[in-house]
């Protein structure tokens, strides 16, 4: 009951929204930077054999390093500033985004690319109208998985390396042994994540794949 009261207080006095916004901003900026580079590297790896040979070991290596390690390394390297969470999120989710986009590029429909060549599509038209739409399912799968990891990483960085954000607040509650505070922050954070997943990501995916008829596997 005390935990519930604490959660209601956090939401009603605006504390939750302020710190949640800080955490969201860090995840968002890190994810956008990672996405930007991973789309380029993924397409390069999927289309140029030399790119695949060069980046494949690096990507595999990146996948083996736990995100929490990156969080600690970022704080130790860059100290208490905004760059640490951006860096930690970017390097944590970058390899899994690349690997998904790389796999997506390898399974691109060659017939559609040939069609775009025949009809004199420009390079930009080929990328924006033919290649990227085929990668949408891969990008969404990678984003879901990547965001799950990014939240964890940001919370850890905030615990050690920032003066605001959900992680900082959890750490503050922990230091004064305020169990209600820790659980209240955890619950509100999880609810916010569910809203983002179902409200935002699912909505965007539905909009972007409206062209696909619904798959009905089990019919009565």
């Amino acid at each position, binding site marked *: 009951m005390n935990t519930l009261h604490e959660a209601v207080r956090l939401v009603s006095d605006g504390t939750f929204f302020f710190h949640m916004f800080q955490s969201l901003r860090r995840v968002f900026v890190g994810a956008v930077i990672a996405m930007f580079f991973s789309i380029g590297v993924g397409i390069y790896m999927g289309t140029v054999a030399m790119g695949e040979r060069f980046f494949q070991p690096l990507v595999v290596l990146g996948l083996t390093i736990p995100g929490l390690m990156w969080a600690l390394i970022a704080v130790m390297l860059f100290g208490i500033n905004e760059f640490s969470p951006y860096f930690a999120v970017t390097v944590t989710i970058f390899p899994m985004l690349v690997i998904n986009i790389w796999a997506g590029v390898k399974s691109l429909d060659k017939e*559609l690319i040939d*069609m775009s*060549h025949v*009809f004199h599509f*420009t390079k930009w*038209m080929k990328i924006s*109208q033919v290649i990227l739409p085929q990668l949408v399912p891969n990008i969404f799968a990678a984003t879901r998985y990547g965001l799950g990891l990014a939240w964890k990483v940001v919370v850890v960085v905030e615990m050690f390396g920032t003066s605001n954000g959900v992680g900082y607040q959890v750490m503050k509650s922990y230091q004064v042994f305020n169990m209600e505070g820790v659980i209240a922050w955890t619950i509100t954070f999880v609810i916010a994540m569910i809203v983002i997943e179902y409200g935002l990501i699912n909505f965007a995916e539905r909009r972007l794949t*409206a*062209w*696909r008829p619904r798959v009905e596997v089990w019919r009565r």
Partner: protein
Amino acid sequence: MAELWVKDAEKWFRREDGRPFKIIDRLSFEAREGCVTVLIGPSGCGKSTLLNSMVGLENLDRGELIFISRGKPEKRPLIGYVFQSPRLLPWKTIGENISLALQGADVPRRQWESRVTHYLNLVGLEEYVNQFPLYLSGGQRQRVGLARALAIESDIVLMDEPFASVDELTARQLRQTTRRLCEQLHRTVVFVTHNLAEAAYMGDYVVTLTQRPARLDAYVPNPLPSPHHWGADIYKFAAELENKVTLKEDIES
């Protein structure tokens, strides 16, 4: 208007074990201006490879393809292509699919809507302009592919077994539509098939090819007057064609 010359075309591929094999051998023929030239030959004899060479998806190892547009030779002219499968972008509506081809062909944006409407109207699909391709039947999608190839208003249109993947009744309707449009629009068309009756109906000229490697077997003008009507005359001409084809394997009579 345009015409197309294939001169001494030769193409080699490599097997998995690295050994080369010839798929097209010193092939020469002419696709005349405003006419439908049908290429007929056994499956795998190199018909599609030749068409792919015409649009730059493959390169010939020897020989040349000469495009003559309004009396002048052109290096890589705009060519409409109707593929065996329609190859529409499933995330774009029918209208957007055609508009993208128009954009690629540098058609001014203000003309897109009228062109899309006009050509969808010609193939009888104007009410589907805002539909996504996956909601259309196979025959309808193929008609959209035909509308897209015609909408860019290129002088040359290639058709690679466009009706091979639809049922015979739909194929018959599509042949009639296509033949009618070819007669109306006077485009230079190269039409690939391995169906003799289709060749007899669609072609003003029929080029028969040998089994791999593809060589010129016969160049036969269609004796039937335009417009062509599907009936006994077509089958008679198809039988004549069959007699001219040296290697009959894999050719549908």
